């Protein structure tokens, strides 16, 4: 066999920052994770699906705030009980780590009462929607009503566009990604709505997320952003002040999101904005 272009090459370790550093916060400082879910995923046990274990991991990685909904919300019809348990789990977490985002299903009756309890009783800063699991579209009248009500209350609305790769879903649990096409029209009736799009990259008509971000009408998270230097690529399509750190933990390995910040060549300002600055602005402001 010919000795070739590889011959003589020595596979020596190259001098680079060690991975032990990568496992810590890439640029130091805190993180706000806007895309976390508590309780158990219906299809499998996840290594970090116990709240205490997840909290330990997030705290190790300098997460100071994790915006959390509940996997129980996907299939359980009694969202009142789901949100009660979510609120209790968040209260018992160390260092006020978990910030509860209750689940609301506008396709079901009495959703306004669920919303009132989230806001008034549990003091949640926002809610999370799962349109594909709950069986409605962003074009539905009830959805527009919900947006308007949340805008009036100053509540953050997170829409989870997907939760898993549709190619490998359980054959009896196939959920198409959310179609974002109606979203600009729906937002017209909810001026000032604080809208956060999670796992939006695989939504139908996903580019609408980027155009809404560019127009200052939505924030987008980065959990499903892929490709080499993916965050740099995202920042070429969405303004810096519209991108939020989101891990989709514990469904995804938290470290996958964290390392994306290291893989991309980001300025200190960009890192600060994505790590926590923009999330702080979502909570403070009524629009970007």
């Amino acid at each position, binding site marked *: 066999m010919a*000795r070739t272009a590889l011959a003589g090459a020595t596979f020596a370790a190259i001098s680079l920052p060690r991975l032990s550093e990568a496992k810590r916060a890439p640029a130091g400082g805190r993180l706000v994770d806007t895309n976390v879910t508590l309780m158990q995923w219906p299809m499998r046990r996840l290594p970090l699906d116990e709240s205490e274990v997840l909290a330990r991991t997030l705290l190790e990685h300098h997460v100071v705030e994790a915006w959390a909904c509940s996997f129980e919300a996907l299939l359980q019809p009694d969202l009142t009980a789901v949100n009660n348990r979510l609120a209790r789990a968040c209260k018992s977490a160390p260092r006020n780590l978990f910030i509860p985002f209750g689940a609301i299903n506008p396709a079901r009756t009495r959703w306004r009462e669920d919303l009132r309890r989230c806001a008034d009783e549990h003091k949640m800063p926002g809610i999370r929607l799962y349109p594909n699991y709950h069986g409605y579209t962003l074009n539905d009248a009830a959805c527009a009503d919900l947006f308007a009500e949340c805008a009036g209350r100053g509540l953050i609305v997170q829409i989870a566009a997907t939760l*898993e790769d549709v190619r490998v879903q359980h054959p009896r649990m196939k959920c198409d990604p959310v179609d974002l096409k109606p979203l600009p029209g729906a937002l017209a009736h909810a001026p000032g709505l604080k809208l956060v799009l999670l796992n939006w990259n695989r939504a139908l008509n996903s580019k609408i997320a980027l155009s809404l971000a560019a127009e200052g009408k939505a924030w987008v998270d980065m959990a499903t952003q892929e490709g080499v230097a993916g965050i740099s690529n995202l920042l070429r399509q969405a303004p810096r002040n519209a991108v939020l750190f989101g891990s989709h933990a514990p469904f995804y390995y*938290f470290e996958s999101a964290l390392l994306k910040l290291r893989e991309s060549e980001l300025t200190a300002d960009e890192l600060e904005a994505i790590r926590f600055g923009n999330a702080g602005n979502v909570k403070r402001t009524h629009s970007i």
Partner: protein
Amino acid sequence: MTIWDIHVHLSGVPGKTAAERTDALLRYADRLDIERLCVFMGLNWSYDPTPEDMRRQNDEVIEAVRHRPDRVMGFVYLNPNHVEASLSELDRCVRDGPLVGVKLWVARRCHEPELDPIVRRATELRAPVLQHAYLKVAGNLPGESTPAQLAALSRRHPQSSFICAHAGAEWETGIRDLRDCPNVSVDISGTDPTAGMVEMAVNELGAKRVLFGSDAGGRSYASQLGKVLGARISREARAMILSENARRILAPILKLKGVNV
């Protein structure tokens, strides 16, 4: 801890030539301490490449290897629908060239007999065979293999070394299908960083049969590396997955080529 990425493509990064794209891939690999890249398939892909297209794509991979032989290895991309052309390409690129393994994608399902002469020749050359394998709930492409089909192929060739790319993607089934195939390793590349994948692979196959791969540039190095760094496995298992297993699997052919491992 060193890191070898066993599954990289010359895609998803800027550059008009293989050399330019290699530089771009390495620029970001450096940021995550990834020392070696194993690349296959060219600048533009095809499901069922003609012999001419195979040669073009493999020439581009050879260009990448020759551009950075200190950092980049390559596998030859073959098409079992063109067996004679594939055998010629195997000789040209592996026996007589710098490539060190075989990549098979979605041209033909891998349990079919057309693969046998390719696998036999690869084994003679000490080249591992990396087979794309997926389990899609809506159905695979006509020529797209499943882990169970790779298991069938591996049983016909017990002396050969196989790598199941993506662990079948629907990894809970894929890993189970490969449990009793000791000559098949899995690479963890090219799927969402779904938690539990690496733990299950280590528990069911043993850490020695799990390889780090990213599927960059379509995938992020980071999202895939996070699977290994975030997994609840031992330090020893992590080191095996990140580079030791790839070194071991490639050692026979690298030694033949005079490469210091």
